[in-house]
């Protein structure tokens, strides 16, 4: 958009000869100011409403201004642009609010004591206590789930990409897609039905099994993508040297795509680390420290958050703990995400020749 003067006649549709750049900012500022004014005058307490009014005014204002200055078609274009921006801002608002509240409320009780003590002798409504038992349980359950889910997922992906032919491969591909959509609670119910049949009490490893089910399709999908990026010439060169296929896969294909596979596994770990529903059904929660995932109920970080919220009947101390645990969980997941993406960028397979 040039900085040409606004044509006041409003007749022709002249591309590039439209509104000056600042005019949209002016409209935005004006609509926000007007919305705040309306909100104050009408006594609207909710800031959500203020935002909605501002967004509406912005879209209408853009249309009005642009229609006068540039003609109807340009105005429609402007409105579409405005709507797209509004949509983006709408999506950012909850994210910002969520991160802000979690951080600002979470730091209240998050300290060394909180991280190193359990809820053993602390009633839910009292201050004190910590999340040591939950972190321990989460690490064990997620670790075991990864130990089961990641190899199976990677091997399945190798099968699909390197060997996969015929009906079996088609079926596996299809059901991996279907499995991606299984709600986590259904995976939990599946293991629960096994536990009912075998008459078992809740224990950590049962949760790991459900988490592994949720993890496998994600790992398969991402690993498949990465294996496909490995240039065929590498495989052919290795095979041409008379190297068996399995060694080609282990020594050439996998090392080439290792960065991407690691990224995929880490993203999958980040995803299952936040799963609450299966853990609620299978691991049950435990205020005491239980380091044995194969016997007795365990705690877990997401489950801890839920139980602090649900069982405390609005006690402030429990909410503080829930926020602090949320902050810990988000930090864990975000760090995993960042590291995974870092690895992806750093170790991206060199597909170019």
């Amino acid at each position, binding site marked *: 958009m040039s900085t040409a003067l606004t044509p006041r006649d409003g007749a022709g549709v002249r591309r590039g000869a439209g509104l000056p750049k600042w005019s949209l900012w002016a409209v935005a500022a004006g609509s926000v100011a007007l919305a705040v004014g309306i909100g104050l005058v009408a006594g*609207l*307490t*909710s800031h*959500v409403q203020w935002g909605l009014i501002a967004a509406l005014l912005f879209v209408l204002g853009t249309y009005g201004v642009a229609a006068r200055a540039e003609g109807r*078609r340009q105005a429609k274009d402007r409105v579409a642009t405005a709507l*797209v*921006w509004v*949509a*983006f801002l709408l*999506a950012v608002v909850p*994210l910002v*609010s*969520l991160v802000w*509240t*979690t951080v600002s409320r979470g730091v209240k009780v998050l300290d060394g004591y909180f991280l190193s003590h359990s809820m053993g002798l602390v009633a839910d409504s009292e201050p004190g206590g910590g999340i040591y038992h939950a972190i321990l349980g989460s690490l064990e359950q997620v670790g075991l789930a990864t130990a089961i889910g990641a*190899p199976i997922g990677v*091997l*399945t992906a190798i*099968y699909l990409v390197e*060997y996969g032919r015929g009906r*079996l*491969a088609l079926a*596996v*591909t299809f*059901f991996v*897609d*279907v499995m991606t*959509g299984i*709600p986590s*609670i259904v995976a939990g*119910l*599946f293991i*629960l039905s*096994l536990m*009912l*049949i075998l008459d078992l009490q809740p224990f950590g490893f049962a949760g790991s099994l459900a988490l592994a*089910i949720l993890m*496998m*399709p994600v790992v398969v*999908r*991402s690993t498949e*993508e990465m294996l*496909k990026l*490995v240039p*065929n010439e590498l*495989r*052919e060169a290795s095979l041409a040297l008379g190297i*068996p296929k399995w*060694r080609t896969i282990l020594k050439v294909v996998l090392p080439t795509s290792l960065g991407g596979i690691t990224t995929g596994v880490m993203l999958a770990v980040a995803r299952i680390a*936040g799963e*609450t529903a299966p853990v609620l059904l299978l691991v049950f929660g435990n205020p005491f420290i239980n380091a044995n995932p194969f016997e007795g109920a365990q705690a877990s970080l997401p489950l801890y*958050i*839920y139980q602090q*919220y649900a069982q405390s009947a609005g006690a402030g101390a429990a909410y503080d703990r829930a*926020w602090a645990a*949320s902050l810990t*969980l*988000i930090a864990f*997941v975000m760090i995993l*995400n960042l590291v995974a993406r870092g690895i992806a960028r750093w170790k991206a397979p060199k597909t170019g020749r």
Partner: protein
Amino acid sequence: MDISTTTDVPPSAPRPDAGERRTARGVTRPGDRIFLALSRGSGILLLVVMAAIAVFLTYRACLAISADDGNFLTTFEWNTNTDPPVFGIAVLAFGTVVSSVVAMALALPIAVAIALFLTHYAPRRLSGPIAYVIDLLAAVPSIVYGLWGALILVPHMQGLYGWLDQFLGWTGIFAWNGGAPRAMLTVGILLAIMILPIITNVSREVFRQVPRMHEEAALALGATRWEVVRMAVLPFGRSGVISAAMLGLGRALGETMAVATVLSPSYDIQASLLDPGGGTFAQNIASKFGEASVQGRDALIASGLVLFVITLLVNGAARAIIARRKEYSGANA
């Protein structure tokens, strides 16, 4: 229709194993056989797990339904600890569908707009970081959404509820009795935030693949950017967007913790989206599990089976739509 197209090999890329298998078939070494057995075994294990999920859920569900004194489909009650137990999924099915549809209706336009923003509107420098922010939305654990929804979103909904009741209350759908806004609309909004990333990501993939020539042709005819989007991008991406929406719907249907923390459940159907009450399959399982006996757990498994079947149908349909247009790589989202 070829199912393998969901693995989205771009048509131009060679199949990685196109040539070498035939040449390698002559020689089989023990190492090869073991490795093939391992990897094929993993694939088969996945299929077995899927089958086992269906079989065991059905088995426990049959036990529960045969003991049910009410009608499993139509009873408005969930009393599993009585003898005989009386329970039905009518309320849960209604609540699940309503909350997911509300979520999708809210999320779809915004997600499509963001996808357009990323592919056609945002400055190139911005679109990378913004896509990252959207991915962060997906990385936040659902329980944290639940906590945020229950403690932050719910109080903020008061004003909006009052407003809707005042101006749209006459429709009945938006009538409000003044209770805490722990109702389907709040649940729908929270779910919409949660399914936004997946719809955005799949739509973005589709919009990226719009043939450059279509857009340039439209531009050459003097179309504005919006007209390009309306005439070239959206028609091309329609089926991809539909399948993206269904993937999002599948997520919303099975979401547990965010609903369990926000909704105040009851076993009756509310005509208004703004009145607290109702429930969803997943929420009911999470909320009722603690007090359930073995019989009660079987009943919950029965309701979980229904949820499983519904999500299978929705996801299967979404995948089928993606597969039909094989150039879309949405399957990996």
